[in-house]
């Protein structure tokens, strides 16, 4: 019972308390770029979740084999392998989604969520919690992107999942589909998530603690100070 409960909390923490996009500020590029339509958000979320779960599982299994010094390149190779699989799969089964996501599909490989979870969680944990963690983070990422996608599609095109909702009520506000609208909606969502969270405010800025490369980076900073 105890164990079940902790696995459940690994899952839910990614959706609410540690939502990768709205609380940890990871994977912002993809979130801003592909959320012009709700369906794109789901496709991107599903692709990222798949890569996240698979890479977390493999990295967790290999955590005692990979030497500490070359762990980042090793992680990137594992992740790139799974991204290639997803790319081929989507190209074969949903060419429309492939066109909509464009370059952001291969760019999943540098999505900080995946490398971040590999570095912070999977490389230190057993396989089952790692898979659950990947699943929770993936669902949290998808949920945040879906919220952005629905808001932007509704205001910018008057539709949700392609269904006309606002036609007749108001003119679509096209700027919500353009880059400025993406930044604006994202800012509003972060403010809302901050308000609802325990501290009652949004994160100040992206601290180094959340950066997947913080470890290698701080070492260099120490060197700079002459230690």
């Amino acid at each position, binding site marked *: 019972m105890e164990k079940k409960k902790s696995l459940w909390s690994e899952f839910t923490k990614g959706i609410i308390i540690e939502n990768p996009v709205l609380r940890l*500020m*990871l994977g*912002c*590029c993809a979130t*801003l*770029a592909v959320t012009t339509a709700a369906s794109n958000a789901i496709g991107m979320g599903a692709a990222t979740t798949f890569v996240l779960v698979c890479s977390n599982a493999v990295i967790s299994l290999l955590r005692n084999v990979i030497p500490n010094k070359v762990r*980042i*390149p090793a992680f*990137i*190779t594992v992740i*790139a*392998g799974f*991204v*290639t699989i997803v*790319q*081929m799969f989507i190209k074969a089964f949903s060419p429309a989604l492939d066109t909509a996501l*464009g*370059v952001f599909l*291969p*760019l999943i*490989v*540098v*999505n*900080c969520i995946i*490398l971040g979870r590999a570095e912070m969680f999977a490389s230190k944990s057993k396989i089952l919690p790692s898979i659950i963690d990947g699943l929770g983070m993936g669902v949290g990422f998808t949920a945040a992107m879906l919220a952005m996608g629905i808001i932007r599609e509704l205001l910018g095109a008057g539709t949700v999942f392609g269904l006309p909702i606002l036609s007749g009520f108001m003119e679509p506000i096209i*700027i919500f589909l*353009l*880059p*400025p*609208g*993406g*930044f*604006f909606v*994202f*800012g*509003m969502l*972060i*403010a809302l998530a*901050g*308000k609802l969270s325990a501290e*009652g*405010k*949004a*994160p*100040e*800025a*992206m601290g180094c603690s959340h*950066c*997947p*490369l913080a470890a*290698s*980076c701080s070492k*260099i*900073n120490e060197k*700079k100070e002459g230690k």
Partner: protein
Amino acid sequence: MDAQTIRSLVAIFLAAILTENYVLNKFLGICPFLGVSKKLDTAFGMSCAVTVVMVIATAVTWPIYMYILVPNSLEYLQTLVFILVIAALVQLLETVLRKYMPPLYNSLGIYLPLITTNCAVLGVTMLVLEKGAADPSFGYVQSLVNAFGSGIGFLVAMLLFAGVRERLEDCDIPKTFQGLPITLVAASLVAVSFLGFNGVVDRLAG
């Protein structure tokens, strides 16, 4: 090189900075844009390092794709090969700078480990190939100019935004919006101003 070619290269360069700005228009490299743009000097150092890596990465990955992957029909390995090449390049650049140019290393080198996972760098190497596939006249030189322009565009966005953020520090902002939300709303306004450049570059080149 005739006048027509030079004119088209200038157009590619300006388009990469203004209308196709990586940060404000394509949403690539948002993490450093939000994370590092707090101070003017770090923003400058980071952007210079990004520009250098973008140009070198494009210079190396373009021939690899065209002369190794395509003839052997291994295009599907693009993602894997490119990220490994970029990671190796960044490591190499860091070692060389540390050994031979310590002053430059101290100002630029410290940002290099962060650049491996910068999506703008991987993005530029892939987008120039996409452009080349759509337009046969977009070759190696055009790709390099595009990469350099993209880097400068990144620099322009970072510097502009560092200025905006320094002004934001003194403002009385509601508690809910302090920190990132107000930063993103400001980014939205900066992006609106960049929309105004649409069409300008076409007219300059045409």
